[in-house]
């Protein structure tokens, strides 16, 4: 039996968490993800879980830290400025090796910005955000269905790697409504034992959860261990969608909302025989360096389309290693690239 209904992206994200066995959510209201916090306030109670509207995003990430340490599947969500507040806690969780899922429904920035959809937090999500040498596994949904699917999977990934995982969406994907579908009897996946959890020293030695590592060379060893996990993620967890890439001369590179516009654009252009395709990173970290590199070797020209001043652009440039071959089309402050703009830019690139 399948459940199917019309849902907002925010609520689909919440339901994905519930179905993944999340039973602890702490959050704070911020637009454009308020539907998610409100949804969790109802669903957590219905499922016998814990919902706390914390006093701040800062308090929320720390409640999540504690609940994760106690062994629960945990979730917090916010939008750009609130996610900035969470960076300290996220760094601590990475250092302590605590699993968690954090959703960032991006809005225009920097600062208070506006409440429109944007993709200005790519750097924050993939290049750190918080201090220290750590990485987040970052998933970028481009539809309401993917808000559910990726959030559902994120909990398994977080537990598997004992690391926070981020869902990087934007205000439009969060608030748009599309059909959502999932199996009625869907169960939490990837449940594993957590012998490291803070449960009280019963029938075992007392243990601690900490990121402070003093002593000659010890923090370096710990970091080597963390880097080992990230290398493994890089090997095993890269996810990309290749859309109409067969024989493409121009390759669009876009994620999330921008990828939907890119897709429409490609559909129209392919009808007119223009050989254009889309490489859509699903994991922003680990980044699909290999896929892009393979296309670069074939002499493909790239057009990176982002709702930012060019953040993922830098990763594409790093991979392609030839700036003549990489172009950019972007809008900041909530602006969304249009099909017309992208089409025009592709024409310019093809003429070169």
């Amino acid at each position, binding site marked *: 039996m399948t459940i199917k209904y019309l849902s907002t992206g925010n609520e689909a994200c919440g339901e994905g968490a519930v179905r993944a066995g999340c039973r*602890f959510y*702490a959050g704070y209201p911020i637009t454009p993800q308020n539907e998610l916090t409100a949804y969790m306030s109802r669903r957590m109670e219905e499922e016998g879980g*814990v919902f*706390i509207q*914390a*006093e*701040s995003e*800062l*308090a*929320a990430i*720390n*409640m*999540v*830290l*504690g*609940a*994760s*340490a*106690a*062994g*629960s599947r*945990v979730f917090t969500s916010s939008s750009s400025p609130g996610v900035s507040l969470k960076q*300290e*806690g996220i760094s*601590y969780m990475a250092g*302590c090796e605590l699993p968690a899922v954090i959703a960032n429904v991006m809005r225009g920035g920097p600062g208070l910005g506006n409440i429109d959809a944007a993709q200005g937090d790519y750097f924050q999500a993939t290049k750190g955000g918080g201090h220290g040498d750590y990485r987040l596994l970052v998933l970028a949904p481009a539809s309401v269905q993917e808000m559910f699917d990726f959030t559902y999977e994120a909990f398994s990934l977080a537990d598997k790697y004992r690391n926070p995982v981020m869902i990087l969406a934007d205000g439009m994907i969060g608030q748009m409504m599309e059909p959502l579908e999932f199996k009625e009897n869907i169960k939490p996946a990837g449940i594993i034992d957590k012998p490291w959890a*803070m*449960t*009280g*020293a*019963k*029938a075992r030695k*007392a*243990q*601690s*959860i*900490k*990121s*402070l590592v003093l002593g000659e060379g010890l923090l370096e060893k710990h970091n080597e261990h963390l880097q080992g996990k990230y290398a493994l993620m890089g090997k095993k967890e890269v996810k990309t969608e290749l859309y109409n890439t067969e024989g493409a001369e121009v390759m669009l590179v876009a994620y999330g909302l921008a990828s939907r516009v890119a897709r429409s654009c490609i559909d129209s252009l392919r009808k007119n025989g223009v050989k254009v395709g889309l490489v859509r990173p699903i994991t922003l970290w680990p980044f699909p360096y290999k896929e892009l590199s393979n296309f670069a070797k074939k002499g493909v020209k790239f057009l990176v389309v982002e709702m930012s001043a060019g953040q993922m652009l830098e990763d594409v440039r790093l991979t392609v290693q030839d700036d003549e071959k990489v172009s950019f089309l972007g809008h900041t402050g909530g602006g969304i690239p249009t099909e017309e703009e992208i089409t025009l830019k592709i024409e310019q690139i093809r003429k070169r």
Partner: protein
Amino acid sequence: MSKLFAKPKSMKDAATHYCPGCGHGLIHRLICEVIDEMDIREEVIAIAPVGCAVLAYDYWDFDTMEAPHGRTPAVATGVKRVLPDRLVFTYQGDGDLAAIGTAEIIHAGNRGENISVIFVNNGVYGMTGGQMAPTTLLGQRTATSQFTRRAEKEGFPLKIMEMMAILPAVVYLERTSVHSPKEIMKTKRAIRKSFDMQLNKKGFSMVEVLSPCPTYWGLDPIKSMKRIEEEVIKEYPLGVIKENR
């Protein structure tokens, strides 16, 4: 021979890094004595602060975890809500609780989280080199109040306990001290009371313990204890500030 007095079982063997005459060693021991007497070592989850006591997990033989500075009550909230039958306590200094963590302690208290908070108030930031704390006394010289603390520029010593007393969900607040054996035993009883209340699901309780910092008070340990008795208590009076029965 039987032991009339010895290191409690819940206290690890490690010699502490605390300065001679520091109150942390005393308060750590009292907590461990209470845990031994209640026989709850296997149920305890402690949240350590950032401050001199950040290494508390090296001294306590029960599950202890780190929290980002000041967020201790939020972390404790997360733990206790997931494992409500465990004994969850936070151990915080005056920076952790009364400066960076003011929002977290007030809201944990206001929500009535069923946890115990041990607030170690020594009126100075030890770990970072003796800076002014919210609880530093007027006229006290510190690394960041080099002209002494003046009300016009640095404000007054902050009374968190008195502020928290008006919160209906806070059930027990007591301020104690460690400046004499008598006061040390009172501190132990207050900690025991807080832990008992938690296990009986009474709600949020806190014990503030006036503690010495000989190093940054610039006094020897004996004079430091005297300073608590003669000066600190005037600003931070001892006793039960609130008790809901």
